[in-house]
């Protein structure tokens, strides 16, 4: 073998080893979500990926958009197999907490970030640690069609503040227009549980609310009966759009409001098709009003903070991930001021990061939502504290209450039985 050939072989070997070394350093951070396929959310996911990859040469972020409808089932499969994503997107509340055992506690790792974030409670374990860092804050709020209000002889600048106002508005809409007063998208029963939560918050004392958060409030209690009595009033008085059990909350219900077929829609405040951005885009800017859930059987001045808010969606790290340090950096990028600003502008997301300047939101509905966040919001949402089994039963009985196939007593008994069963099972 000639020395020139030997040299070439040596060089080839060195180059080969060097390239192996580069590949050994290359890493892929796998991120699962149920949002990045939404056109409005894509710019946000693009920016966090590019920003992170720029700061971490050799690391590739693989964002995998799972179908939203089956997300938790697919995630359950990954959890069972202890493999798959390094980082996962989660909804706040029990959907996240129920999976706490599979997720890394984050309190220490994000000690520098946490002071700038709100909405953490919906990702908080019983021992106080956090299992995810929220990207957005979320809450339920009423949107109303100003044209319908005008047609009913109502003043669109003065939405209902109390249940009595709400009743008067519904009576007027029903009498003077062909629109319904309220629509839900209750195909999966979700909107009914949101309505129950907003009525409860408008009605209950702070003590009752705290009792519910601790899972100490029976569904057959007088407090709960009071809430369901109001929901039944909505049904019996014909305020609710016909056929809501076959409508989806995110498309159908918004279309019904935008088309003037209903006066009011209980939507979300952030990054969802039934939040201000899409509702306003579809109904037309200036035609959408935003109202706090009404105070129920009490003076609104005695209960001004009627917008319940907690963490909307958040990123968590799986326990089996071998890239946990990178995952921490990725999530810090995701909740950074710069990324959160993109989320706000592109998707109408209300960021959990308190350092983001919200003054950039120019639409009338957005300004109103931001105003309510400042003046009238309270931390924690009743709907986030439904235990999974209770939540499913509530979704089921809500649909039957709407069609008149179940009484309030039977509905409450049924959910209470589920609650007792869960208590017994956990013992």
């Amino acid at each position: 073998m000639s020395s020139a050939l030997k040299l070439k072989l040596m060089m080839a070997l060195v180059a080969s080893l060097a390239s192996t070394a580069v590949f050994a350093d290359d890493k892929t951070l796998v991120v699962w979500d149920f949002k990045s396929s939404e056109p409005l959310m894509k710019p946000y996911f693009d920016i966090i990926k590019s920003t992170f990859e720029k700061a971490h040469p050799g690391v590739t972020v693989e964002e995998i958009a799972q179908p939203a409808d089956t997300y938790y089932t697919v995630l359950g499969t990954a959890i069972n197999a202890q493999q798959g994503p390094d980082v996962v997107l989660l909804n706040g509340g029990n959907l996240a907490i129920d999976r706490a055992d599979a997720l890394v506690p984050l309190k220490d790792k994000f000690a520098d970030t946490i002071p700038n974030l709100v909405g953490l409670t919906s990702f908080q374990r019983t021992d106080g640690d956090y299992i995810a860092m929220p990207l957005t804050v979320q809450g339920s709020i009423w949107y109303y069609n100003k044209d319908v209000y005008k047609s009913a002889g109502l003043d669109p600048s003065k939405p209902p503040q109390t249940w009595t106002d709400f009743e008067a508005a519904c009576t007027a809409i029903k009498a003077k227009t062909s629109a319904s007063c309220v629509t839900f998208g209750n195909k999966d029963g979700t909107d009914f549980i949101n309505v129950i939560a907003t009525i409860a918050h408008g009605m209950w004392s702070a003590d009752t609310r705290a009792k519910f958060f601790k899972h100490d409030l029976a569904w057959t209690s007088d407090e709960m009966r009071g809430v369901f009595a109001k929901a039944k009033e909505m049904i019996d008085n014909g305020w609710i759009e016909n056929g809501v059990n076959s409508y989806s909350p995110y498309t159908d219900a918004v279309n019904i409001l935008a088309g003037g077929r209903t006066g009011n829609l209980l939507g979300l405040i952030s990054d969802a098709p039934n939040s201000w951005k899409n509702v306003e885009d579809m109904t037309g800017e200036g035609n959408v009003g935003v109202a706090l859930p009404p105070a129920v059987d009490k003076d609104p001045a005695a209960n001004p903070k009627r917008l319940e808010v907690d963490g909307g969606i958040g990123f968590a790290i799986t326990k089996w991930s071998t890239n946990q340090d990178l995952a921490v950096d990725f999530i810090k990028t995701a909740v950074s001021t710069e990324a959160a600003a993109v989320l706000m502008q592109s998707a109408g997301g209300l960021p959990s990061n308190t350092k983001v300047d919200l003054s950039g939101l120019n639409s009338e509905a957005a300004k109103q939502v931001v105003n309510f966040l400042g003046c009238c919001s309270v931390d924690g949402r009743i709907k986030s504290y439904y235990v999974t089994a209770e939540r499913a039963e509530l979704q089921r009985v809500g649909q039957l209450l709407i069609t008149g196939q179940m009484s309030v007593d039977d509905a409450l008994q049924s959910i209470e039985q589920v609650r007792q069963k869960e208590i017994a099972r956990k013992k």
Partner: protein
Amino acid sequence: MKRESIFVYLFVLPALGLFVIFRLIPLVAGSVFSFSDWNGIVDPRWIGLGNYAELLTDPVFQATMLNTVKVLITLPIWVGLPLLLAIFIYLEVPGARVYRAAYFFPIVLSSIIIGTMFSIILRFDGTLNQFVGLAHIPGVDWLGDGRYALLAVILVAIWAHFGMSVLIFLSGLTTIPPEIIEAARIDGANLTQIIWRIVIPMLRPTIELVVVMTTITILTSMFGLIYVMTGGGPGTATYMPEFLIWLMQGQFNRLGYASAMSVTLFVVVALVGIAQIRLMRNQWSP
């Protein structure tokens, strides 16, 4: 062992391997986990027959099984309709070839597409209610009212599946010698007599096969339609076993309980399979 025997085993090996890995092992594992309270994350907690005891008192599971019985009661329609249509095609009614293609068409559509299509038609402000509204007939919430939702899903499922049954019946009908039918015609038998006295008796093995296959379809293949059209609701009106198992596994994180439901469903389907084998054996034995 003879050389030929080794080859036989080698040919069987891939299929056997797939069966063991993807059927037998999960079945055994599922059966074992059905005796545990397991969320799929921490170690299972063994509770003996606890899950099976819970099944006996779970109103949602009971409602689901009741729905299954209700759907099984409609089995004669699932079988009778395609049988009748296949006979008409076999007897070459005008346009038979077009009908054969048209009946098979739903089979090539996924249940998600069919479900979406019929959701648009059957929802409260959907096409059907708009159509009947022209005659001032008040609309019905076909998918959102518990009195109609299961019926709506059943009718759509029949539409989605009957094409395959028509094909099976057509292939069965080809085994009937045409001379027999011709002879009956010459002897003066009318259409009804030909169908009842000749076609149906000679088609019995095929009918039994379709009955059993359709029963298994009902028990295991309605998930897609239910998922898209009603999400199981309203209430539990359209819950079927596989849908409830999926909820328990994914949404509730109760893998042990879902396994107990799966084992129960497996036993039910296995009993149907045994019935199938017995029916066939009785039919084929001299």
